[in-house]
């Protein structure tokens, strides 16, 4: 039952991603060329509103459905993994015009080539898990 609610939020996410055009390769290309405000507007609104929501939920100690207080674990304070990993991610994001969420959404939209992208992304994640002890973090 609980997983159905996550499925439902996932469906909402898929619809929002579709209608926001954030899954569009063209929109991502346009964003990286700074030729439209569209994607920056989406992310800016999401972060400003999201920051307010997270601030409010912590300030008023609003309980989650699991009965816990929201306690976001701070991200590890280091630089190399974020810059290097982020940079590698960015190269792929700009090339295929899709980050992980949109990969699933575009597959749902019927673009079968994203099955190749998904499998390759899983191989990428597997490779990271296999060689991570050799990488600077």
């Amino acid at each position, binding site marked *: 039952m609980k997983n159905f609610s996550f499925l439902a939020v*996932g469906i909402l996410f898929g619809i929002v991603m*579709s209608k926001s055009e954030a899954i569009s390769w063209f929109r991502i290309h346009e964003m990286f060329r700074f030729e439209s405000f569209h994607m920056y507007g989406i992310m800016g609104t999401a972060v400003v*509103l999201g920051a307010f929501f997270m601030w409010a939920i912590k300030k008023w100690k609003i309980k989650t459905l699991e009965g816990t207080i929201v306690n976001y674990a701070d991200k590890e304070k280091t630089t190399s993994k974020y*810059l290097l990993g982020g940079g590698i991610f*960015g190269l792929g994001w700009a090339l295929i015009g899709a980050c992980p*969420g949109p990969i699933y959404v575009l597959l749902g939209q019927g673009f079968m080539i994203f099955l190749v992208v998904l499998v*390759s992304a899983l191989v990428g*994640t597997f490779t990271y*898990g296999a060689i991570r002890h050799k990488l600077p973090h």
Partner: protein
Amino acid sequence: MNLLLQANGLIDAISQPWHWSISGAAIALILLLLTWMGKSFGVSTSFQVMCAAAGAGKRFSYFDIDLKENFWRIAFVVGAFIGGAIGANYLQSPEPVAISEATISHLEDWGIDYPETIEEGSGMIPTDVFNLGNLKGVLLAIVGGFLVGFGTRYAGGCTSGHAITGLSHLQLPSLIAVIGFFAGGLIMTFLIMPLIFG
């Protein structure tokens, strides 16, 4: 009957392209919903969970994670898939994605056609390049997918985990990751893609 007409009107309204502020607010709402449900919004962990489910945890400790604890992530991405199908089949915009004239003319130089009508395409992906019948497109999909899957786990998150959730929690590391995303994206867009498409 009246109700049915209203429902149709609502679907028509949702089917129009959304203003960026509506889309941004909807994403913040999803962040709020998942947080309220006791979870942290981040899509790319689903890659780690799938590798773990395939048994990768036996060989590499990175995949030795609690599958039951993470099953919601699979439910979420299955939902994203279904949401995409609903978006394409029932909520399709009447026009292709309206990107800027500047981007359209630049893509023309690369020989990438932009759909002018919805019959030609929805403007989601350049289907001339990215289709299973085009070897170049398949190779790019393999390379791009690998970079995304490798990079996102190396960085500990993707656009949702860092750019949306991390920044909303005012995490400096997430800002560094987002700078990394853009550095990589700009190098690909301005230095590497001209070699592939130019």
